[in-house]
């Protein structure tokens, strides 16, 4: 048998049939659903008189529009409320394996609740009308975002029409330094290959630095694959994966567990598998990262400076850099550590898991946020993460430092609820996108790890977390 990549194995296991031009019908095991990208799909299904193919594949939650405080008031924005109520009604009408509605103890960001409930299992195809579905690739899944038409297609047929992507191996070898996290690895990779570097590819992350990451870290990394242009990122299954999945509510039990584990152990690239592209990074050379512009590829080390567009030879790139600096209100060659911030956001499907909150709390313990920081938000990824953090006393550390401790949701990652930046405000954010207006019209986002966000909160400007740990 020819050597296969992990992606080859996942692909081959899910092909139902292939058209003459290579377009395949790919079977979908898990369909995650949230309120923003599903209403038109359910409506389309209804209008065509179609039934969902396999309701037990659906796991749904409301996360984008839900408020993170004053839950007693419900969802005050009537347009947001209508969207969440539409999801309630759609799931009531068609059913689901699980639904975690607003205020449910297990409600949270769709990419946090899938894994923590064992609804994301190794070897699955996982889709969701959300680009950060790549997160689930951390479990050795083929997981990627889809549009609403495809949400409807999966509801109706349990399949997607797909062409096989090219394969890219991103190998990161060596030990990660203290204070250097999966987020920094992700940003360093994006800085290296660019936000279009992974276009048309499925990325497998490998190497000793990746193996050393926890599942939370691997999820952070795969989450950001889409920011490198790759719809899907993935990590091979190992003991860390299996230990994480064991005992989760929807994980297989008894004899099924043993059968599943035997299969999951095969979910890695064969030693001589061939990739279309290979990218290699030295983990020892990765420092904490801070973005300076309006694309995640606009990133430098914390000890670096804002680059000078005048030094860029490509006119299209130079134009992009100039526009980014104008939007960000930054001058070329400004040291990153001199950039003062107004707000801090710790949360999002990238960095809102228990390990992220622990890392931030470790920096904040016994310290306070700087006077110029108007608002610092800690937003756990789910009700279960929040509960665990509170059991560990992390909430008290955040609150003592001057943070607001909020309820779970997407929150200020994309500001569909009330959590947002005002025009011109500058934020140290653990989210995934620094696009113009992403965290609120006119808002200025700098992407960092949770530990770096905490260090910036304390200093009032970006700071090297390695100097405070």
């Amino acid at each position, binding site marked *: 048998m020819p050597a296969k990549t992990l992606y080859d194995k996942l692909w081959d296991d899910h092909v*139902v*049939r292939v*058209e*003459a*031009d290579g*377009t395949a*019908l790919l*079977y979908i*095991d898990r369909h995650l659903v949230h309120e923003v*990208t599903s209403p*038109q799909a359910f*409506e*389309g299904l209804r209008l065509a008189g*179609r039934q969902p*193919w*396999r309701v*037990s594949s659906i796991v749904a939650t409301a996360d*984008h*529009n839900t408020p993170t405080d004053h839950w007693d008031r419900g969802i005050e*924005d009537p347009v947001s409320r*209508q969207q969440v109520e539409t999801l309630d009604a759609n799931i009531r009408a068609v059913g689901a394996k699980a639904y975690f509605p607003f205020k449910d103890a297990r409600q949270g960001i769709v990419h946090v609740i899938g894994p923590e409930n064992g609804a994301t*299992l190794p070897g699955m195809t996982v889709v969701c009308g*959300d*680009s950060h*579905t790549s997160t689930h690739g951390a479990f050795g899944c083929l997981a990627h*975002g*889809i*549009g*609403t*038409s495809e949400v409807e*297609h999966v509801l*109706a*047929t*349990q*399949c997607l*029409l797909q062409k096989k*992507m090219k394969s890219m191996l991103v190998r990161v070898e060596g030990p990660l330094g203290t204070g250097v996290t999966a987020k920094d690895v992700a940003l360093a990779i994006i800085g290296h290959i660019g*936000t*279009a570097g992974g*276009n048309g590819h499925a990325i497998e992350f490998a190497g000793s630095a990746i193996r050393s990451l926890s599942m939370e870290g691997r999820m952070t990394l795969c989450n950001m694959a889409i920011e490198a*242009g*790759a719809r899907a990122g993935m990590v091979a299954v190992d003991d860390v994966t299996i230990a994480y999945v064991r005992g989760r509510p*929807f994980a*297989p039990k008894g004899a099924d567990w043993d*059968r*599943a584990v035997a299969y999951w152990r095969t979910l890695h690239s064969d030693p001589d598998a061939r990739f279309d592209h290979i990218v290699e990074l030295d983990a020892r050379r990765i420092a904490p990262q801070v973005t300076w512009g309006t*694309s995640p*590829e606009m990133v430098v080390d914390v000890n670096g400076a804002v680059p000078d567009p005048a030094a860029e030879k490509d006119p299209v*790139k130079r*134009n*992009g850099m100039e*526009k980014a600096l104008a939007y960000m209100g930054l001058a070329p060659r400004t040291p990153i550590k001199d950039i003062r911030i107004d707000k801090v956001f710790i949360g999002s499907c990238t960095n809102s898991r228990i390990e992220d909150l622990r890392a931030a709390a470790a920096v904040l313990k016994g310290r306070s946020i700087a006077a110029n920081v108007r608002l610092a938000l800690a937003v756990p990824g789910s009700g279960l993460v929040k509960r665990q953090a509170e059991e560990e006393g992390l909430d008290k550390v955040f609150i003592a430092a001057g943070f607001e401790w909020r309820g779970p949701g997407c929150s200020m990652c*994309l*500001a*569909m609820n009330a959590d947002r930046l005002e025009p011109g405000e500058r934020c140290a954010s653990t989210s995934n*996108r620094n696009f*113009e*207006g*992403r965290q609120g*019209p006119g808002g200025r986002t700098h992407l960092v790890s949770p530990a770096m966000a905490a260090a910036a909160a304390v200093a009032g400007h970006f700071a090297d977390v390695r100097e405070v740990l």
Partner: protein
Amino acid sequence: MKPFTVLDGLVAPLDRPNVDTDAIIPKQFLKSILRSGFGPNLFDEWRYMDVGQPGVDNSGRPLNPNFVLNQPRYRGAQVLLTRENFGCGSSREHAPWAIEDFGFRALIGPSYADIFFNNCFKNGLLPIVLPANEVDRLFKEVDATPGFRLRIDLDAQTVSTPDGRTLRFDIDPFRKECLLGGLDDIGLTLRHADHIREYEERRRATQPWLFA
């Protein structure tokens, strides 16, 4: 879905790389539960001087005179000329919905983000990939020639310029068929319902935990 066959359309240029879907249609408009009506809010933050809100009449809002689509010479454009990695970021299909609702039927650029690219085909929108040097030349020609139009023939897979150049582009045969015929791909897939059931039965036997 509206079929796409031949288009002879006015071209508008959007000269910046990595245009993301947050820029194409900002998040506040994603709260709609409809598929239509996004056109007036396409590129909302660049297009208007104020901040747009869903459910608000856009006709009286102050326009940004510097934004390219507000220039009279591009009124009625049906072809959007773009730079690399257009449509990166979120998977929101509201982006192609907004572009289509605004009046565009085709995009021409050196590359697109994968999910956006895929979403276009589901909405009768043709994203054409041409080599970067050709795209660069088109940007210069559009800028220099008021009323610059291109003729796009999907069946022939060609883009024809006013000065008689014919540029060929590639497209997956399956996607081409669906666009030419305006076909509903759910209906096409359901023709294979028996295959899907057979596959499911096979997997249910080997990996029963997936069907619990």
